[in-house]
């Protein structure tokens, strides 16, 4: 590359000055801008290190790049891409493009904690200049590829916090466009006016709808077949124009300039270290950065920029699948523009005959026919100094392609077919109309040849008659037809170890899990025991990956159960990004799951129920007694610190399950669960009085507390708890609200402080008192909830409910019924069956019996009246025993008591007799007492 002689652009400068004088009122700001643009172009062109300006997703850039590389054969290629991503680029050959290079950090240091996880993605498509440069540099021996842009760490050091870019109004992202997650995107050659009015002006006068179309129409097409110098000068001109017309957003300008300083500093360092001649290098950067005016610009620029040290944050790198839709969504491009660029690229290649670079063994491409040449003979670099190509380009009207009638006809026929498949009434007549309308529209918009966008408009006009929800609209059909969305895939070899391990372990399933789409896996574990390991992996994936990646259709994993058969819907190919991001967290899924469980359990806001869930998961998925014990101990700590009873129902459910599991599967209970029951008993006893009166606690929660206390009571008492504590707690509880009062009564009945007859009488009293009747349903709600802690009360509850139906006035009863149903629904599987079974027992089974049926709570009223009192006073039992002494004698013999039955009268020193028979106890006692 030789530098142009001074004054190459003098003529252009003169013309622009005249133009500025003519359009503005005099030479002033406009002239400054116009001349400045020429200065920028000249400066970049004169730079000894060849600058190659590019624009993202521009087939023209890619084509010019491929041409230039073949021609110049540079020894070093500097690329504007985060420098820490370099080692990954060679893995691109194992992937089907588009994929994105990702830098990911979940444990961050030096950044605010709420930024985590940090993620940067740089998507790579095949129709891009950067892919050409990468493919050339990696596959040509002796060529260095140096990434010079700031590292991922600096992206976040320099940026403001990652804003939540999905505002409340943002449409929900569909699957394809959400492929990048919420990563920050970096891209080579972001080129777009930063001056909203300028963009609006360009769109308006270009008679186009959006920026992508403008670029396609006014830069891409005219530049499609131009020579290197023209391409370079025009791109520099556009970069400089947008730069000079940008409003002064200080922060953004500073970041841009810092990036340029960074890149030039890195390049000079590399040149100095390797001693490469700048003339053998090529610097690929966005056109915006090529027109830089910072002091560090150029091989001879100043070395004043100090690169700040990275933070201690540990970055991990990988490739994730990307898609055209995801790129469009992330970088604000029009839908379909990247696909159209890909089509344009293929067409340009065919038209110009340029041979593109492609990584050796690139997955997802057709094998090239015939052997490749080992080395491309280097063409002599252009010896002529670059002349001023800008003047000619700017003066000449754009050379437009002549109307390609055959192509347009093809499109018209194709869209009608696609529309018909999509459920539209479309016919050949529509194809003709689309063809005609496209040409007319292009004519109205001053174009010789309809662009894909004109064609899209025409197709919508002629075919779309109504919008049917759920059906693809015609505009989308055109996008699909023009190349459609292409979704990349990361090859097996480029996957992180964890993802490879998952694929290896799932190999016995014999499924092509790399493919996109849902696949059904059938696991006959009884028949093929080795599949149990696959099942383990699948359950863990279900826990770790987003919903839909692994979904069990049949089969369940619960404590103490073992599946015989399972079937799964697997979509690992579709959720490849999620799997790859798991790989950043550890080397095996067990490790990741363990970390996640620990993190969940030790989170500052973790609740007891959440920690118990982690315990359960540790047993279910990891079968790790050690981890379960550790997390269980943590649950104990959390419980002791908890002051609310919100989680009580969940805690009760989980502890019951865990207890049942340990009781059946282990010889002794683990110490933590014993302590848990003990602590829980004391804890809930303490909280009970407040919970009964606390307005925030619901009846269900209080019922769950009582459930814990009553159902764990046996274990807790055996471990040294005191029942008095519970009795005191209940005695201290004075609820005001009817449902809780009912709950308290039920608890008292359970403890025996309130007899069932009294409880019944109280209910009767409530129903009989017209002032309290409206509150009766709420008492009933309390009773229904009381079934949880006191299931034995079911018959009384059925009675109370029946009484309600029988005696409550309609205005009270009817509004309450939905509440009853919802509380039974919420109570779930436990309460309703209990109540129904009891009701089935109480009520007659046949309609005929109903007439003669008397409810049991009315009928047996007389029985207690018959039995009572009569027994009191007389020692009936003694008489009976005396009359039939044989039983007592037999029992006495069994117990080792000598001597037969004696009548009460003969009873003298009964105890002494026993002592005489067994003197050992007395002797031992004597020894003890004397020893002291």
């Amino acid at each position, binding site marked *: 590359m030789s530098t142009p002689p001074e004054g190459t652009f003098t003529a252009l400068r003169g013309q622009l000055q005249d133009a500025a004088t003519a359009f503005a009122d005099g030479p002033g700001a406009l002239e400054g801008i116009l001349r400045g643009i020429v200065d920028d172009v000249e400066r970049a062109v004169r730079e000894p290190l060849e600058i190659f300006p590019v624009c993202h997703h521009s087939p023209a850039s890619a084509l010019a790049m491929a041409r230039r590389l073949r021609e110049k054969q540079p020894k070093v290629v500097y690329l504007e891409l985060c420098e820490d991503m370099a080692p990954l680029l060679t893995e691109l050959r194992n992937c089907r493009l588009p994929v994105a290079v990702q830098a990911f950090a979940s444990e961050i240091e030096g950044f605010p904690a709420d930024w985590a996880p940090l993620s940067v993605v740089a998507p790579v498509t095949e129709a891009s200049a950067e892919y050409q440069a990468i493919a050339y540099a990696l596959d040509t021996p002796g060529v260095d590829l140096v990434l010079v842009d700031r590292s991922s760490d600096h992206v976040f050091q320099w940026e403001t916090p990652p804003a939540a870019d999905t505002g409340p109004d943002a449409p929900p992202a569909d699957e394809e466009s959400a492929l990048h997650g919420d990563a920050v995107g970096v891209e080579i050659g972001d080129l777009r006016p930063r001056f909203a009015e300028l963009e609006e002006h360009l769109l308006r006068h270009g008679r186009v709808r959006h920026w992508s179309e403008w670029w396609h129409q006014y830069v891409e097409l005219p530049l499609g077949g131009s020579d290197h110098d023209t391409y370079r000068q025009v791109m520099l001109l556009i970069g400089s124009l947008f730069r000079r017309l940008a409003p002064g957003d200080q922060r953004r300008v500073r970041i841009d300039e810092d990036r340029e300083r960074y890149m030039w500093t890195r390049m000079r360092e590399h040149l100095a270290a390797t001693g490469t001649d700048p003339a053998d290098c090529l610097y690929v950067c966005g056109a915006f950065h090529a027109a830089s005016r910072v002091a560090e610009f150029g091989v001879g620029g100043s070395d004043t920029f100090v690169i700040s040290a990275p933070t201690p944050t540990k970055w991990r790198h990988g490739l994730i699948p990307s898609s055209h839709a995801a790129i469009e969504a992330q970088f604000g491009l029009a839908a379909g523009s990247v696909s159209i660029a890909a089509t344009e690229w293929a067409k340009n290649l065919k038209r110009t005959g340029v041979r593109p670079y492609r990584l050796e063994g690139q997955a997802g491409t057709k094998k090239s026919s015939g052997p490749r040449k080992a080395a491309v003979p280097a063409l002599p670099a252009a010896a002529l100094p670059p002349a001023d190509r800008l003047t000619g380009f700017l003066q000449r009207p754009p050379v437009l392609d002549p109307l390609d009638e055959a192509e347009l006809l093809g499109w018209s026929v194709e869209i009608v077919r696609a529309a018909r498949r999509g459920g539209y009434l479309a016919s050949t007549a529509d194809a003709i*109309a689309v063809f005609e309308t496209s040409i007319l529209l292009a004519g109205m918009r001053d174009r010789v040849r309809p662009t894909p966008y004109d064609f899209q*408009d025409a197709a919508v006009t*002629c075919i779309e008659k109504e919008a049917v929800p759920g059906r693809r609209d015609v505009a989308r059909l055109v996008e699909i037809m023009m190349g459609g969305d292409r979704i990349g895939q990361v090859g097996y070899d480029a996957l992180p170890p964890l993802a490879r391990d998952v694929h290896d372990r799932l190999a016995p399933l014999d499924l092509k899990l790399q493919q996109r789409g849902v696949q059904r896996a059938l696991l006959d574990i009884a028949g093929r025991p080795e599949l149990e390991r696959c099942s383990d992996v699948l359950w863990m994936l279900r826990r770790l990956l987003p919903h839909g990646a692994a979904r069990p259709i049949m089969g369940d994993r619960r404590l103490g159960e073992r599946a015989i058969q399972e079937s799964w819907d697997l979509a690992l190919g579709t959720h490849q990004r999620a799997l790859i991001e798991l790989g950043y967290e550890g080397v095996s899924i067990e490790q990741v799951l363990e970390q996640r469980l620990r993190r969940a359990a030790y989170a500052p806001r973790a609740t007891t129920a959440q920690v118990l869930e982690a315990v359960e998961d540790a047993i279910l998925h990891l079968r790790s007694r050690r981890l379960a014990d550790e997390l269980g101990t943590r649950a104990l700590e959390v419980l002791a610190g908890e002051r609310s009873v919100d989680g009580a129902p969940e805690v009760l459910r989980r502890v019951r399950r865990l207890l049942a599991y340990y009781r059946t599967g282990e010889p002794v209970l683990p110490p933590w669960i014993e302590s848990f029951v003990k602590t829980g008993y004391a804890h809930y006893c303490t909280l009970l009085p407040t919970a009964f009166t606390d307005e925030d606690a619901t009846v269900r929660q209080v019922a769950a507390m009582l459930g814990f206390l009553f159902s764990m009571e046996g274990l807790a008492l055996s471990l040294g708890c005191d029942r008095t504590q519970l009795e005191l707690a209940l005695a201290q509880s004075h609820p005001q609200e009817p449902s809780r009062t009912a709950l308290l009564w039920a608890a008292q009945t359970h403890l025996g402080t309130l007899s069932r007859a009294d409880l019944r009488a109280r209910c009767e009293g409530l129903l009989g008192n017209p002032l309290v009747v409206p509150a009766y349903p709420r008492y009933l709600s309390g009773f229904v909830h009381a079934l949880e802690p006191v299931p034995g009360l079911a018959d009384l509850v059925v009675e109370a409910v029946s009484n309600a139906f029988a005696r409550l006035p309609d205005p009270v009863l009817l509004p309450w019924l939905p509440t009853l149903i919802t509380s039974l629904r919420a109570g779930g599987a436990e309460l309703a069956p209990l109540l129904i079974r009891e009701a089935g027992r109480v009520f007659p089974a046949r309609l005929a019996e109903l007439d003669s049926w008397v409810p049991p709570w009315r009928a047996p009223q007389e029985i207690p009246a018959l039995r009572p009192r009569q027994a009191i006073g007389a020692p009936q039992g003694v008489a009976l025993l005396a009359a039939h002494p044989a039983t007592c004698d037999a029992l006495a013999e069994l117990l080792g008591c000598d001597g037969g039955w004696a009548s009460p009268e003969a009873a003298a020193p009964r105890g002494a007799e026993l002592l005489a028979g067994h003197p050992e106890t007395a002797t031992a006692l004597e020894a003890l007492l004397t020893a002291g």
Partner: protein
Amino acid sequence: MSDLLRAPAEIKYAEELDWLESVDDGPKPFSWRLSPKMVRLFVLGSERADGLDRDVSQKWFGDRSIVERAIVTLASDRGLLLIGDPGTGKSWLAELLAAAICRNSTQVVQGTAGTTEDHIKYSWNVSMVIAKGQSRESMIPSPIMTAMETGTIGRVEELTRSTSDVQDALISILSEKYISVPELDSDNIVFAQPGFSVIATANSRDRGVNDLSSALKRRFNFVRIPVVTNKKSEAEIVRFRTEELLRRHQIELDVPPTLLDVLLQSFADLRAASAAAAGDDEKLESALSTAEQIGVLEDAILHSNFFGERALTAHTLASSLVGSLARREPEDLAILNKYLHGVVEPRSKEEGGSWPEFLEGGRDAIATLS
């Protein structure tokens, strides 16, 4: 300016159309009076970059590509069906297009439940038939037939309101481009001249009343006109139409820009509320279109001119708004009441300006109505 109550577009803009025709050097399809680009310029207004000697005002506000698609359709073989919510400017666009293309926007058939096939094709002058027998003289051509004979644009308003058999009379007109008159022995076919086309409008809210047959759908290109939600262009439309209205009534009254903002904002709020509503009872019956806004403003202006103090106040505006939008009792009134208390009241406390007066006016109007 003509002295008609409402002059059709070709009379109202006659001078501008004459001038455009004189400077138009683009290719004109069939018998069009203007080239497609000039038609677009007439509808959407000129810019500096068009390099014209005089300004052409913008007459229809909306997406440029809609107008382009409509013009291109008219130049093609198919009819144009403008479809959209009530008050989105369908008929106005149809009138402008017809005026620009053939200087005649009055060849209109209004689709109603009572429209018959005769209104689309032709009918007979009974007394003349009795006197002279059936002949071309005693035949009364419909506006569509006239358009065919003269090679101009015929219009059908509210196509979906007329019954299916009447709609289907259009099928042969649009495909064969002739109408046969079997009652006559000779000269019994009326052929369409080049340049003939049909612009129909249909209300998307009336969908399903008399849905178009597939055969007819096929002969129309559908251009959907969306409700204007862009505040800036909506303000322009309201201002444009109001000025026209004031001129027509010869009223000298200022519409303060703050009040225009209040009106636009309240419509934007009510639209958002309608979009969020779960059922029909929770949203206003009105489509809340731009035309409705103009209606509210017109009502307020007329009221303040004739009964008020010849100045538009927020109070009057609010009572017009309530009066125009409350169509069902009690649903609409409840919604408006909720809007006034939930949205306007906090805003009037926060922002002040015209809002407190607007709130008071709204309350008074609701109190009167309920």
